[in-house]
C-alpha cells in the first residue's frame, strides 16, 4: 500500500502505511497534545492527553494507526475538555508547586495546562501523596512528587541507553517509577544518559544537580510560545 490521505479537523493529511495519526499529523505541522509520547521513543499510550475522535471513536492518536479517509477531530471544545480533565488528574495525583519548581517554564505539564486554558483549580481533590525524593546519586536527583508516570525515562533508558535504570512497580494508583536497585546511586545511571537529559522528563522529576536555573525564568521553553509551537510552525513554512 502506498501513501493515502485522511482528514484532521478538515485539513487533508497524507500518511504512509503504518504511521500513527500523531506521526502523520506531526509531519504536516498539526500538533496533537501529548505527554507520554516523545519523538524517538516507543509509543506508550498511557497519558491519554492525545485523545482524538477518529471515525467517531475516541482513541489515542499516538498509538492509533492512521487509515485512508479517516475523519479525525483534534481541536474541538469536547476533546479539549477531556484533555483538561486528564491534565487536572495528573496535577492532583502528585504534588505540584510550580513557583518553587526547577522545571517551571520548561515543564510540559504546566505548558499543557496553559495551552488548554486551565487558569483555575479544577474540582478534583488533591491526593497529596507522600513520595520520597531520591537524591542519592552524586549528579542526579529524583523528585517523585512531580512524576506523572509517563514512562519516557523508562523507555529512553531501556531502548536508547540500553541500561534499564528505571521501571514501573506497583499497580493502580500505587504504580510508580522506581530505580533498578534500592536507589539511583546503586544503578549505572550517569548524568550523560539520554534518559536523564532535559528533553526526556517532561516535568521536574528528573533533576540534574548543579544545573538548576541555568536558564533564567523568562528565557525558558514555554515562556514565549505555547507547547506544540515547534510542530505548528512547520505549517506556516
Amino acid at each position, binding site marked *: 500500500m502506498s501513501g493515502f490521505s485522511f482528514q484532521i479537523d478538515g485539513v487533508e493529511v497524507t500518511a504512509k502505511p503504518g504511521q500513527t495519526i500523531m506521526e502523520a499529523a506531526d509531519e504536516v505541522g498539526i500538533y496533537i497534545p501529548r505527554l507520554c509520547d516523545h519523538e524517538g521513543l516507543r*509509543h506508550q*499510550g*498511557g*497519558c*491519554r*492527553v492525545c*485523545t482524538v475522535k477518529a471515525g467517531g471513536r*475516541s482513541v*489515542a492518536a499516538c*498509538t492509533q*494507526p492512521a487509515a485512508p479517509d479517516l475523519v479525525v477531530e483534534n481541536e474541538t471544545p469536547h476533546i479539549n*475538555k*477531556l484533555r483538561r*480533565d*486528564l491534565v487536572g*488528574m*495528573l496535577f*492532583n*495525583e502528585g504534588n505540584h508547586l510550580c513557583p518553587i519548581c526547577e522545571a517551571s517554564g520548561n515543564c510540559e505539564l504546566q505548558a499543557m495546562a496553559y495551552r488548554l486554558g486551565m487558569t483555575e483549580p479544577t*474540582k*478534583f*481533590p488533591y*491526593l497529596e501523596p507522600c513520595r520520597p525524593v531520591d537524591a542519592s546519586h552524586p549528579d542526579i536527583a529524583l523528585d517523585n512528587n512531580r512524576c506523572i*508516570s509517563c514512562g519516557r525515562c523508562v523507555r529512553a533508558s531501556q531502548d536508547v541507553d540500553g541500561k*534499564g535504570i*528505571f*521501571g*514501573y*512497580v*506497583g*499497580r*493502580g*494508583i*500505587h*504504580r510508580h517509577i*522506581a*530505580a*533498578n*536497585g*534500592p536507589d539511583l546511586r546503586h544503578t549505572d545511571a550517569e548524568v550523560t544518559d539520554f534518559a536523564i537529559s532535559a528533553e526526556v522528563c517532561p516535568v521536574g522529576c528528573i533533576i540534574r544537580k548543579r544545573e538548576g536555573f541555568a536558564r533564567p525564568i523568562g528565557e525558558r521553553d514555554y515562556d514565549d510560545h505555547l507547547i506544540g509551537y515547534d510542530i505548528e510552525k512547520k505549517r506556516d513554512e
Partner: protein
Amino acid sequence: MTQASTFETDQDQVALICERHQKDPHRMLDILRDVQDQFRWISRETMATVAGKTGLTQVAVEGVASFYAFLSLTPRGRVTIRLCDDIVDRFAGLPAVVEAFENALGIAVGQTSADGAFSLEYTPCIGLCDQAPAAMINDVVLTGLTPEKVREMVAALKGGKRPEDLISHRFDALSPYERAKRMVKNNVRHAGAVLLGPVPEDAGLMKALAQTPAAIIDQIAASGLRGCGGAGFTTGMKWRFAEQAEADRKFIICNADEGEPGTFKDRVLLTERPHLLIEGMTIAARAVGAREGILYLRGEYVYLRPLIEEVLAERRAKGLLGKAIMGVEGFDFDIRLQMGAGAYICGEEGALISSCEGLPGEPKTRPPFPVTCGYLGFPTVVNNVETFCHAARILDCGAQWFFDMGTEGSHGTKLFSVSGDCINPGIYELPYGLSVRALLEMAGGEDAAAVLVGGPSGTMIARDTFDRKLTFDDLATGGAIVVFSPERNILEIVEYYMSFFVHESCGYCTPCRVGNVFLQKAVAKFRQGLANPADIAYLKDLSATIIETSRCGLGMTSPNPILSTLENFPLVYSAMVKPPKDRIRATFDIQSAISDARVLAKRRSSIYDKDFTK
C-alpha cells in the same frame, strides 16, 4: 525460631526454582509464584537472584512481583488467610467472621503474626459468592463461614493441622475431584440442554476431526455463538481471523480468570465439565491451526489446579492431547496451565496475554488484536471457558440446534451465576431471552429492590425494569446476577464497587488510575452526607471522561456502578445532597484540616479544640 530465620529465603533454592522453569523470563509469574509458595515472600535479594538467572533487570522482576496481589514483598504467614470482602460477603455476615478471625489469631486484617505462622488479608470476590462468606486458606477454600467455624478452624490450625486437614482428615487420599467437591458446592439449580445436562464424551471433537477447519468455523459462525466472557464478540469471526493469519505458531488461550464480582459459572464448568472445555479448545486448535494452548486459571481457583492437571494428563494418555490427536496425522496440540496471582485485570484479554508472558498484567495496545498478534506476537484466540464448552457441543449437536435456542442475536443457552439476597443462589443454565423477573422467581429473589446484572462493570437495575431481558442487546452479562433486598444501602454497594475498581486498575493510563480514585472519593462524600447538588453533575461529568479516554475495558466500564444507580436510583443520591449554606463548603472540616499540624506541633489548638481547658 528467631524472626530472621523464619523469613529467610535460601537463594540456592530460588536459583533451583528458576532452573526448573528453564530460566525463562516468560515464566516469571510461575517462578515468583513458586518462590512465594515456598518462602512466603519475595525479598530484594530474591529479586536479584531471579533477575540474574532470567537475564532481566531487578526492577523488571519487581514490576511483576509488586503487581499481583498474591505475591508479596514483605513476609506472609505460613498460613495465609484471604477473606473475600465483597459486598455480598459483607451482607452475608463477613464482619462477625472477621472479628472471629482477628480474635482467634490475635492479629488484625493486613497483619502477619510475629512468629510468621499466620497472615490475615482481604481479597476481592473469589468466585464463591453463592456460599459466602468465603475465604482462601493457602491453596484450599472454605465456604459458608460462621464465627463458630472460624474458632474451630483456627484452633485446629494452631494445633498443627494443615489447611487441607480442615477439609478432610483423609484429604491426601481423595481424588482431585472429590477434594473440590468437599470444598465447594456446585449449586447447579437448573441444568440446560447444552452444558449442564448429559454430555457425551468427545463427540464434538470426533465430528470436528472428520471435517475441514473451514467447515468447523462455518458451523461455529452459523450457530450464532458469541463470547460468554462479557464482551460478546462473535466466536466464528474470531476463529476465522486467527485461521487466516499466517504464522509459524498460533495459540489457543482459555480465559478462566473469572474475576468479575458475582461470577462463578466457570468454576462450575471447570469442576463438572473440564473435559468438555479441553475438547472445545482442541476443536479451536484444529480450526485455526494452532499447536499450543494455555489455560489461564485465576489464582483464586488454585484449589482446582490438581483437577485440571489430572484431566490434561488423562487426555494426553488417551491420545486426546499431544501428537496425532485421535490418530489424525499432523494434528498436534497440547495445553499448559498458567496460574494467575490475584489481579482482576488479567481477565482482559491483552492483560491475560501479558500475564501469560510473565509480565505485569497490563492490557496491550490495540490494534494489533490478539487474533493477528497475541501471545509472544503470534496469532492467538482467547475465549472464555463457557465459550469453548459451547463450541464443543455445537460440533456434536449441530449449528442449527444451538441457533434455535434463545432469541434473535443471542443464541443458545447461558450460565447465570445468581448470588446475594435470594433463597437459591447458584447456577442457572437458561436460554437467552429470559426476563430478570423470571430468573428472580426461579432463584427465590422476588423481593429484590435492586439487581446487578453483569457485575460491577454491568448495570444495576431497579424493580420497575425487572422485565428487561437477559440478552446481548438488552442486559448483556458475562453471567453475574447479584440480588439486593430492600434493606441494602445502594450507596454502600456503589462505594464498595468503586473501591474494587480502584484496587484493580492496572495503573497504566491516567483516567482509570486517577479518575476512579476521584469517583470513589466523591461517592464517599455522598455517603457521609457532605455532597452538594453540583456533585451529581460532577459524578456524571467525570465518569464520561473516564469512559471516553480509558485504554481498556476496565476504565471504560468502571463508572457503571455510579451511572446506572444515578439513572435507576436517583433518589438515593438526591436524598444525601445538602444545599451549600452561606458560602461554607460542607466538605470543609476544621478538625481534620488541622490534624496534621496538631501532630507536627505536638499540641492541641487553643481555638479549635473544644476540650482545650480539660
